[in-house]
């Protein structure tokens, strides 16, 4: 109290002096004149607009967060139970810079396999990260620091934040063909050509499963060919796996692409996220791993990843990591989780079928086969930005302008309305 008063007295003495007027003037002109308002984030901006819309009919199929059939956010039962066990029991002391060792260990098992030799031999450098974004960013910074001349090849299209991440890490970007608008499927030959033509030893960003935003994944056979070509070209595969379990309902199956690459001897990097498959969105829980030649190298690489994390956030948040390790460390809870993930994946697969059937029943002149062929949370509808704008302005349906529909936001309650609106804006095209 005394100090606050002393400062106030001292300050008021100061402002009475004639010179202070000059100071006052100078401090009023802003340092921030040149700061432009930033454009709204294309994905998160959609939710902002949705929230601001007063229409009772509004539908949010923008952001990729799962909703149940009532359109409500879901907290998994296994998560609630884990939280009950955690509450009040633990300290909140800093995690080490690399995060929760237990959580990381369980997470690696999911990606590399429960009995992975690489885990046993300690060849994987791994740290807890701030969900998928944080893992990708750590990797991008690591790539910049230790392979300074390198670029990153990013598929077209991809999650928009991938571009932001590697740009802010100052790693130059190149693109590779991925989505085929005509078939609304994979442009496999274009992809292979780009992989072949890239300089040897290039870094490639791959979506392990449930490609965001298209939902288009290579087949197993195609993954094997991609892997072989990568070997020939000595490319570095970096997998972003944000939807393990969420795509097919089976985590082992969803990690198939990664397992193929591991079998083929690649030293890969992986970003993993629990945002969707454990519904831990806001907790920001994920993991970055880099497979190294041996334990010694893994220790060195991990130490460098920690060095990058330290000046960004010092050490990662505890709560989400505790939830993950509680669930995955308990066979019953883990089994419950697997059930719940399958329920979510199945609901989405069911909605895909319903949406496609509804559009076909409406007599749409277009093919909607891709709605059920694509996989995961998102459907690349093929709608143009103008058609999307009409969906929003006329029907209060919110999605990103690339025509990406978050199937997680589709319910039995709104699928009819959605199909009708899509039909109306697209029937003349």
């Amino acid at each position, binding site marked *: 109290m005394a100090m606050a008063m002393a400062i106030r007295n001292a300050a008021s003495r100061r402002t009475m002096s004639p010179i202070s007027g000059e100071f006052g003037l100078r401090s009023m002109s802003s340092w*921030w004149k040149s700061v432009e308002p930033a454009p709204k984030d294309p994905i998160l901006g959609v939710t902002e607009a949705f929230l601001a819309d007063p229409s009772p009919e509004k539908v949010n199929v923008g952001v990729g967060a799962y909703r149940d059939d009532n359109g409500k*956010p879901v907290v998994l039962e296994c998560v609630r139970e884990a939280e009950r066990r955690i509450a009040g029991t633990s300290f909140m002391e800093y995690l080490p810079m690399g995060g929760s060792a237990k959580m990381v260990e369980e997470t690696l098992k999911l990606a590399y396999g429960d009995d992975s030799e690489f885990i046993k031999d300690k060849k994987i450098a791994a740290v807890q990260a*701030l969900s998928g974004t944080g893992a990708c960013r750590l990797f991008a910074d690591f790539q910049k620091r230790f392979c300074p001349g390198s670029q990153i090849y990013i598929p077209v299209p991809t999650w928009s934040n991938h571009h932001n991440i590697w740009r802010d890490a100052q790693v130059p970007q190149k693109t590779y063909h991925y989505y085929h608008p005509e078939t609304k499927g994979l442009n496999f030959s274009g992809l292979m050509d780009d992989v072949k033509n890239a300089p040897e*030893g290039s870094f490639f960003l791959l979506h392990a499963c449930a490609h965001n935003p298209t939902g288009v994944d290579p087949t197993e056979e195609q993954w094997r060919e991609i892997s072989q070509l990568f070997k020939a070209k000595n490319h570095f595969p970096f997998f972003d796996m944000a939807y393990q379990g969420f795509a097919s309902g089976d985590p082992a199956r969803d990690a198939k692409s990664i397992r193929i690459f591991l079998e083929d001897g690649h030293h890969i990097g992986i970003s993993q996220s629990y945002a969707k498959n454990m519904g831990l969105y806001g907790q920001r829980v994920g993991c970055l791993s880099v497979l190294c*030649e041996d334990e010694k190298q893994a220790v060195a690489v991990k130490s460098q990843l920690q060095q990058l994390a330290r000046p960004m*956030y010092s050490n990662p948040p505890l709560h989400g990591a505790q939830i993950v390790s509680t669930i995955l460390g308990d066979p019953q809870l883990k089994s419950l989780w697997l059930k719940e993930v399958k329920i979510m994946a199945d609901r989405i697969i069911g909605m895909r079928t319903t949406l496609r059937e509804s559009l076909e029943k409406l007599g749409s002149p277009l093919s909607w086969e891709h709605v059920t062929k694509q996989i995961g949370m998102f459907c690349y509808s093929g709608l143009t930005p103008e058609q999307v704008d009409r969906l929003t302005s006329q029907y209060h349906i919110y999605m990103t302008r690339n025509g990406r529909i978050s199937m997680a936001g589709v319910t039995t309650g709104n699928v009819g309305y959605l199909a009708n609106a899509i039909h109306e804006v697209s029937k003349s095209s």
Partner: protein
Amino acid sequence: MASSMLSLGSTSLLTREINKDKLKLGNSGSNPFLKAKSSSRVTMMTVAVKPSRFEGITMAPPDPILGVSEAFKADTNELKLNLGVGAYRTEELQPYVLNVVKKAENLMLERGDNKEYLPIEGLAAFNKATAELLFGANHPIIKEQKVATIQGLSGTGSLRLAAALIERYFPGAKVLISSPTWGNHKNIFNDAKVPWSEYRYYDPKTIGLDFEGMIADIKEAPEGSFILLHGCAHNPTGIDPTPEQWVKIADVIQEKNHIPFFDVAYQGFASGSLDEDAASVRLFAERGMEFFVAQSYSKNLGLYAERIGAINVVCSSADAATRVKSQLKRIARPMYSNPPVHGARIVANVVGDATMFNEWKAEMEMMAGRIKTVRQELYDSLVSKDKSGKDWSFILKQIGMFSFTGLNKAQSDNMTNKWHVYMTKDGRISLAGLSLAKCEYLADAIIDSYHNALLYWKTPIEL
């Protein structure tokens, strides 16, 4: 053999055997794997022979603070004392989860809050609460919406967002940091590519503030530099400017058109009063200056591991604040998309409920009070045991978790090697790790190290 295989970037001998009829090895540059429509499956474990990209990666240096804790753990002597720890401990030297935090968490559990993404800028209720705690609920700059506040990953994350903003909008501008300062400040500005230099701060002769040096160095810096200031409880020295000195610091900063940048990691934790500890920041706000403030709830709410803090940018207009906030979001999005919700909810719940808020204030007073008591006890022990007439009053003048003892490296080593007292080599001790019961022992150790270290260890004392 090895080099030709490497130049193909290809597989082991075993795989080649399997694919023998499909491969056409040669120097034509054609890729053998593309000749086949689909390669036969490689079912064996393939050993990659190409050299690792990560060959040249060396071990990063160990963290200087963690090393102290590790050595402490390994020490079997029962008298050992860990004064390296930067986290509050009870008198029983146990970690402490505040009761009000447990209450808030139980409330959150009962309510069944969802786990949806926060917006990029974080939890609105938290942002409102944190700005009001800092400036006072009815402060004009809040009413006039002149503060851009976004939730950050504790103090570190908030500092990093600000550093990135500086790098982007003030290219070439320098940040002045105190000598010494928290070790991670340098890492943050280095990684954000913001140049920095130091201003004099700690005076080893007085074990106090080198105020003349500080003012001179701030004056000498190029106009429009950023000046990093510790709002209260300077880390690592525990030495804060007096109220009169703060006024003079504000004067010289305004004179030189510098931008103040406060790191407030101990609000409420230093004196026990949230308002008193915010006095320096509020002085600058009163001047109508534009400045940054990074906040952390690691210590004052004991939320260390939940990574909860905020970056505030005080602007001269609401329009500027809106624009600045949007650009801070643009920096955060490619770093972590949106911040973790748990710690933010705890803070918002505690601050938003009058009963819990008062409970928090009481617990904070208790924590700060324990540290003040321990300081007093240590001082009393030193004075009663040391007959040399050395002035130990700096222990009482310093504030917060840390204390710069004035011990040099040799003396600090003696503390550890002879007395099993673990501290950092710069002479910093953490009062948070000291109990009343251990004060006498610590006093003995300090007195012995100060006077006799040279005799024991035959190392020159650094002046």
